[in-house]
Structure formats: structure tokens, C-alpha cells
């Protein structure tokens, strides 16, 4: 080592310098968050400074048509509704299946089944989202159209299912981690009392791991809300308030894609509106993450 020949003072100085550099690196993450917030706030304020936009309309109007028509409307709710519809479809697919698969993996499956199922889920987790978009467009939508002709070539159902497939591995692996963290003794106790496997898994292990499972659900939902490459390919581009899964919808992220692909001049009110939408998106996912963190801290069961 070089340090061996140096005096203690030189060594301490070097140590201090290194720690300072590491601390600087750690501060970078705070700087990133700060910059995101500053940019979004500044540009959103710039959007509301336009004469034909008001905060009241943004949250009060139920129409969103910044690009078409003579009269532009900037009401955020159609985009939020589209996002929530896709998110709801994805969640109702991924959350139950993900949780049950996690229980299966942690409580029932033999090592051989695990050695097949785990890599399969890891592969699903590693597939780029644009591939799921392609899958939704070329496989899921034609399948839905065969089932019922009500589905057009763009619909919320297809995008929602593809998003569900995308978040399934997140739900599954995070839930499984927290299920496996439940100590053996709890299971043994429940079995000793005469519980069946079902009793033990559903009435003892799941409640004990609930904070982790809820956190997994929230993370999956926040991923579904922020998902960007599936929705513009499969869900279409009509911003409307609807709960019909066969309808064409536009989500917040799909609107951002539409704007940044160059459908609007970079100085106009339409372009600036994307920052307001992005700010809304940031607030929603940020809130979901914070609630997830809080759940983990507040309801964590400590057994050791």
C-alpha cells in the first residue's frame, strides 16, 4: 500500500478527501430530485401564465383537446381517467395473479418448480416495455377482437393487459421476498394447531407479510401509472373520460409521447402543457411511493 509509508497526518487528510468525495456523490441524488421539481414547477407556471389557460380550467374542465379543434380545452381529467382505467385493468390482472403465484412459490412449490418459474419471471421482468407494446398491438388486440367485435384496433383493455404482464414480475418477486421473510416458527405453530396449508398461507403468512405485499402492490401501481411505451402503441390517442375497456383512451404518458414526438411547436401552449401533465404524473407516482415507504415502516412486523 502507498499509505504505509505516509505520515498519519497525510493519511488522515487523504481519508477526509475521499469521504468528502463520497458524500458529494451521495448528495447528487438530492440534487437530481431538486432539479426535477424546479424544472417541472417552473415550466408548469409558464404554462399557466398563458392567457387561455387557468388553474380552474385545468382541474375543473372535463375536456382535453389541445391539438385539435378551434377551441382548445385544458382539463386534466380525461388524461387522468385514461391513466386510471389502464392502471385498473393492469392491477386487476397483475395483483391477484402475482400474489397467488408468490404464495405458491414461497409456500407450495418444490425446488424443481421454483427453478423453472423463477427464471421465467426474471425473463418477463427484463423484457423492455416497448416489446410489451408490440405484443399488445399484434397479439392481445387481435385476440380480443376475435372474442368480441366491440374492440377496435386501439383499446384500453389491450394496453392494460400488457401493462399488467409487465408489472406481474414486480408484484410476484417483491411479495415472495416478504412472504419468505416470515419466520418458520410462525408456520410451524400454525401447522401444529392443525391448520391446512391454505390456513397457514392465507391466515398466518400473508397477514404477517402484509406490509411488504402492500408495498409491492403500490410499486406495481406506480409503475403502471408511469408506463410510457405500451399505451401510445395499443391504447390510441383520444383523451376521453370513460370506464369502457373497449374504448380508445389517452393516458398522461401517451400525451407526453405525442408532444415530444413533435406534434406541437416547442414554444406553444400545447408544448408547455406537457410539463403540467408531467408534473401531475410526478406528483401521483411520488405520492404512491411515499405511501408505500410509509406502509413498510409503519406496519412492518418484526419477529427476530
Amino acid at each position, binding site marked *: 500500500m502507498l499509505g504505509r509509508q505516509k505520515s498519519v497526518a497525510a493519511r488522515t487528510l487523504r481519508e477526509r478527501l475521499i469521504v468528502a468525495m463520497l458524500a458529494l456523490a451521495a448528495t447528487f441524488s438530492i440534487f437530481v430530485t431538486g432539479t426535477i421539481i424546479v424544472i417541472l414547477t417552473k415550466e408548469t407556471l409558464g404554462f399557466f401564465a398563458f392567457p387561455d389557460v387557468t388553474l380552474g380550467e385545468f382541474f375543473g374542465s372535463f375536456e382535453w383537446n389541445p391539438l385539435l379543434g378551434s377551441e382548445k380545452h385544458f382539463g386534466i381529467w380525461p388524461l387522468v381517467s385514461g391513466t386510471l382505467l389502464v392502471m385498473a385493468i393492469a392491477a386487476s390482472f397483475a395483483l391477484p395473479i402475482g400474489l397467488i403465484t408468490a404464495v405458491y412459490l414461497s409456500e407450495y412449490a418444490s425446488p424443481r418448480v421454483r427453478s423453472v418459474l423463477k427464471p421465467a419471471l426474471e425473463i418477463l421482468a*427484463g423484457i423492455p416495455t416497448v416489446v410489451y*407494446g408490440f405484443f399488445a398491438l399484434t397479439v392481445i388486440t387481435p385476440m380480443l377482437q376475435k372474442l368480441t367485435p366491440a374492440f377496435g384496433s386501439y383499446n384500453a383493455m389491450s394496453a392494460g393487459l400488457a401493462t399488467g404482464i409487465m408489472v406481474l414480475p414486480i408484484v410476484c418477486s417483491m411479495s415472495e421476498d416478504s412472504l419468505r421473510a416470515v419466520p418458520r416458527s410462525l408456520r410451524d405453530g400454525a401447522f401444529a394447531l392443525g391448520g391446512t396449508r391454505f390456513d397457514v398461507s392465507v391466515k398466518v403468512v400473508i397477514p404477517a407479510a402484509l406490509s411488504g405485499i402492500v408495498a409491492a402492490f403500490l410499486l406495481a401501481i406506480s409503475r403502471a401509472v408511469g408506463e410510457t411505451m405500451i399505451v401510445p402503441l395499443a391504447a390510441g390517442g383520444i383523451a376521453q373520460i370513460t370506464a369502457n375497456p373497449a374504448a380508445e383512451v389517452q393516458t398522461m404518458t401517451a400525451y407526453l409521447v405525442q408532444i415530444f414526438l413533435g406534434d406541437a411547436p416547442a414554444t406553444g401552449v400545447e408544448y408547455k402543457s406537457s410539463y403540467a401533465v408531467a408534473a401531475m404524473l410526478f406528483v401521483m407516482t411520488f405520492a404512491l411511493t411515499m405511501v408505500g415507504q410509509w406502509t413498510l415502516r409503519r406496519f412492518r412486523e418484526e419477529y427476530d
Partner: protein
Amino acid sequence: MSTHRSIASRLWHDRTFLWACLIAANIAMLVLAVLIISIFWQGFGTLSWSFITHFASRKPAEAGIRAPLMGSIWVCSICALTALPLGIATAVFLEEFAKKSRFTRIIQTNIMNLAGVPSIVYGILGLTAFARMFGAFGTNLDTAITFGNQESLFYFRLPFGSSVLAGGLTLMLVILPVIIIATQESLRSVPSSLRAGAMALGATRWQTVWCITLPAAIPGIMTGAILAMSRAIGESAPILVLGGLLLVFNTPENLMSDFAILPLQIYHWAGKPQQVFHYLAGSAIIIQLVVLLIFNGIAVLIRQKLQKPLQ
């Protein structure tokens, strides 16, 4: 209440639940199988060597992915070179040096939050901070400050514009939280007896970290880093914000070159109405999946070869 249920009914519940488990697990497998088969079905016919070596073209038969493939490699290399040192340094600071204070708790919460930020928001950050540099050098590239010859390898300018450097740095922001969290976990799994041993021999804290803790944590860090990189190579939303769908007919020459990336080329082809472009998208997806498979294979190999029991 379950206490009043008969044994028969409880056993029936047990069996039904097992069936539900098997169905759920099989859905996951089935989806993966359908996904892979449908992509090969659509993409295998148009896959050829010339598909990899040709540039983009309006004629589907001559189109290739050379520019987006090289663009992806450039961008991901920059991303790895910047994200790894920064991420590992942050994790080392948080795990090995920082005292449990308010400040470190804020950083920790903040990293968890950053991991949840949608990647398209990072794209907006990259566009403002790297591509335009907050408008500090004027609003378009004509007024940029340039260094060196445009054709040379060392050409550099401020602001970066929609260049590979801006793209790589933007992806760095996206995967930084992933690398930090993975590194922290593998540092935590290094037994504290190793650290205590080094300290007892008179090593300083940095010497302990550099010579003992980091080498012991390397397999975990490498695995996390490779998984983060496989996320980076599939990430397309931030790059889309940065430069839109660029039609590029040459491979990057320097840090300031325009570029395309593979996932966006897939998006571009998948969004076209003609069936033949969907086949091209399928072929590009096969290439993308092969790259991902190589990445994951390396991660598994490292996990198996390097992981020595430390207890």
C-alpha cells in the same frame, strides 16, 4: 368463521387454493411462451445478417438496424461509465461512512423515491439539463460553443443537444437508483467480522472499504450493475423525449453525434400500419432479446463463479 368449519370443507378450501396457485403460476408461464413464440413467428422470417449491417430504409426489404444497434451500444457504454462510479460511491458512503442522521435518512428516502419516478420524467430532466443546459448557451445549436473539429473523435460542444452524451447521461439518471440500491444490499451482506478484522490490523476505514469490503461485495454489485444495464438498454421513453424518433443513417463518431436506439426503432416500426414493418419490429426485438440474454447470462455466470461463502 373457520373454527366452525368441518374438516372436509377445510380440505376442500386447501385443494381449491392449490388449483388457483397452479393456474396463476401457469398463466405467467403461458404468457411468456406466447410472447416469445409470437415474436419469433413474426420476426424470424425477416431476420438476416444484412438486417444487422444495413442502415434504415424506406424499403422494408433493405431496412436494417445498424445505426440503432451502434447507438444503443454507445449510449449504454456512456451510461455504465457514469452511473457505476457515482452509484457505487453513493452506496459506499451511505453504508460504510454515513452516521444514522436526518441527512442520511433523507438521502435514503430520496433514492427510493427516485427509483419510482417514471422514466419519461427523467427524459424531461435530461432534455432541460443536458440537451439544452437550461438555455445557458442560447436556445439552438447554431450558437453552441464548440471544441475541435466536427468530424474528429474529440469533438465537443455546449450544450450537448440530442447527442449520445446527453442520451447516456439521461439513462444514467434512470438507472442510478437501481445501482445504488443493489450495491447497498450487497455491501450489507458482507459480514461485519471482515471489517472488524481489517480495522483491528490498523487499517483506516477507507482502506477497509477498498481492500476488504468492496472486493467481497463485487459479485453482488456486478450482478446488480448488469441487471441495471439491461434495464438501460431497453429504456426508450427518456431518449424519445430527448430527441424524438431520429432517422439516423450513420453510426456515432463522437460524443456529440446524433443517434438512434434499438427500442425506439422497434417503437417506430411497431407503430406503422403496414404488416411488413411489424415483421421488421419482430426481428429487431429478437436482436434486442438476444443482447438481453447475453447480459443476463453474464450476470448468472458471475453470481455462480465469484460468489464464495464468507461466513
